[in-house]
């Protein structure tokens, strides 16, 4: 097809190849082309953080990255957190602390929190709240989410 680009990238440690148009966001490519629907679309303009992925070592809103930019890059999505042995401590803590209701924002929060705990194992409430300011949740009121991240940080030590 004319104008379609072949992208070779690494998602959750595995090489992935896909075809996309340059105008397609990484979020669209993940969900609609690659078929990985764990990453959610919220606002599609960088305000809500529902589409957060770890891209080249930094958390980003995948709606504000073009799919073609993934060429040769490495990324982690929500699908990359659990292992055959079980859930990631963040996922487990979100369940135990009831840190979700409708669940649309949850993958973004968990991936964003992983980006924090990977860099800074020792966090306090203020740091968690500041780090997660780019993630919006319209159900929980945030307290349970913050508690879950702090709980996971203890488990991961």
């Amino acid at each position, binding site marked *: 097809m004319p*104008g379609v680009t072949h992208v070779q990238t690494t998602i959750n440690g595995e090489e992935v190849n896909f075809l996309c148009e*340059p*105008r397609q966001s990484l979020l669209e490519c993940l969900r609609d082309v690659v078929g990985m629907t764990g990453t959610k679309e919220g606002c599609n303009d*960088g305000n809500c953080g529902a589409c957060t992925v770890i*891209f080249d070592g930094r958390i980003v*809103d995948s709606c504000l*990255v073009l799919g073609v930019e993934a060429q040769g890059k490495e990324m982690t999505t929500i699908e990359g957190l659990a292992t055959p042995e079980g859930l990631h401590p963040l996922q487990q803590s979100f369940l135990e602390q009831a840190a979700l209701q409708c669940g649309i924002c949850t993958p973004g929060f968990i991936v964003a929190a992983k980006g924090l705990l990977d860099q800074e194992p020792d966090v306090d409430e203020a740091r968690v709240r500041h780090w997660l300011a780019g993630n919006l949740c319209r159900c929980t009121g945030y307290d349970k989410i913050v508690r879950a991240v702090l709980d996971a940080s203890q488990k991961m030590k």
Partner: protein
Amino acid sequence: MEWIDFATPKSVSEAVEMMASKGDRARAMAGGTDVLVQLRGGRRSADLVVDMKEIPELNELSYSAQNGLTLGAAVPCYRIYQDKAVIDNYPGLIDAASLIGGIQIQGRASIGGNLCNAAPSGDSIPPIIALSGVANITGPNGNRQVPVEDFCTGPGQNVLQNGEILVSLTIPAPQPHSGANYLRFIPRNEMDIAVAGVGTSVLLDASGQNFVSARISLASVAPTPVFSQAAGDSLAGKAVSDEAIQEASEKAMADAKPINDMRGTVRQRVHLVGVLTRRTLNNAIQRARGG
């Protein structure tokens, strides 16, 4: 989003050639946090998006006491606020780089892009004006330098001609007994657009008791970021005092020409310019004294 072509040049000359070949139908992109939203929303349109992130000069972040700071136009905010030389020498720049958007945005958004986007509310622009930043531009006709206070020409408009790209910003090395600060007012704690913002820098004499010079710049109170030269100049040669700071804040308020909109009223914004000018001056003075 309409169809776009996408290119990833590896050098400044290749980028200029690509940009020039499409004229006003080409858009430069660094972090994409503004331009992708604008293209998707139909507020801008382009045939070619040129990714600037693989060009070495646009990724440069280097400091020397002789040449000051060279800040490549595509360097994202997180690299700026994690850089030891910037932390040590330009706390006024850290103020802005660490409050633009959330952590996700700071992972991509660049200060060069913030400047090119030319929003009146761009948080990084007043501190760079206060720090006497210069924009290094390359185009089909060679290189030119533009003081950052002259770069923005209207909302979303700047001095770049077709084919020209912003390569980097140069910020002079801080002099002894100087300090800078940027503050903005938003109704939330994070993730909001400035109702008003003020960046200041001061140079004090060796005693720390007198102003040698000062520069003050304002956000969100005019069609472009405002360089309030009268406010800064009013401090030159004066003793540091509440009266001198008050007088400078009144001059800054006089240079604020805001509009009423959903984020604030004219009266509130002019008032905020006064408050933020006084606060940023006091913070800058404290930093200049080593505090």
